[in-house]
């Protein structure tokens, strides 16, 4: 038995003709337009969600580095200078609890967005 459906007799040809006629009777009637529009809409909001969550996470990460400045060890060379700059930049305006919560939310949002994107 071959891998393809056998069409050896008249009955099979008649069946094939019926299936073909049924398919030929289906008009597009805006089906393609609707599908393409929905595909485009899907791209827009997913892209906004993924990039938005990514930007939020990046912002929180940068803020966290500034907040961690007092905890950075004193080191020689450029790292020492960077540590000093970060200490100067720290104005004490960030609440560590708030930063932690924001980071968790941003991370969860990003994971959810990536899961939806890959679904």
């Amino acid at each position, binding site marked *: 038995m071959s891998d393809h*459906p056998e069409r050896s007799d008249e009955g*099979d040809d*008649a069946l094939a003709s019926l299936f073909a*006629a049924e*398919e030929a009777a*289906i008009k597009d009637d805006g089906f393609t337009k609707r*599908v393409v529009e929905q595909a485009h809409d899907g791209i827009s909001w997913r892209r906004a969600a993924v990039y938005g969550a990514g930007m939020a996470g990046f912002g929180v990460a940068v803020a966290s580095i500034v907040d961690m400045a007092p905890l950075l060890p004193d080191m020689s060379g450029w790292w020492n200078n960077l540590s000093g700059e970060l200490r100067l930049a720290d104005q004490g305006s960030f609440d560590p609890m708030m930063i932690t919560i924001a980071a968790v939310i941003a991370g969860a949002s990003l994971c959810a967005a990536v899961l939806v994107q890959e679904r």
Partner: protein
Amino acid sequence: MAGDQKAFGLLVSRHQASVRALARRLSRSVSDGDDIAQAAFLTAWRRRTTWRGGSFRGWVCAIAYREFLGVRKGAKIEVELDDDTSASDPGATNETSDRMDLARAMAMLDENERAAIALCMGAGLSHTEAALAMQAPLGSVKSWVLRGRAKLQKALAAYQSA
């Protein structure tokens, strides 16, 4: 990305009739079939990076079959035979009558036979492709096609002689 969308639109336009026909045969409903076909194309678009090449139609038909299983599992599909008899010329009426006969004959098959026939004889998938789509042994798919085809031919012959 814009090029991807344009190419996708061309593929949908080219294969929409095949995929919609398959989904209508599986669901035995025009509206549910079209919804399933639409969902299948959107799933194909989202998963386009996983397409390994080969027949796009076969790939989307396999997705449509899985969409159908998901819909059937989630909610009962309202069965409705296509009763579009609005065509005015006699030739078109005969064609409509033939399609009604085919729909009635398909409705008499069991689930696996109908799916195997719709995938292999309707959508033109090979037995191997249908077996992959149905996640069933190749031998079973071949049997379903053989049995389903015999039942269809018998039923259609009876309709024509009546």
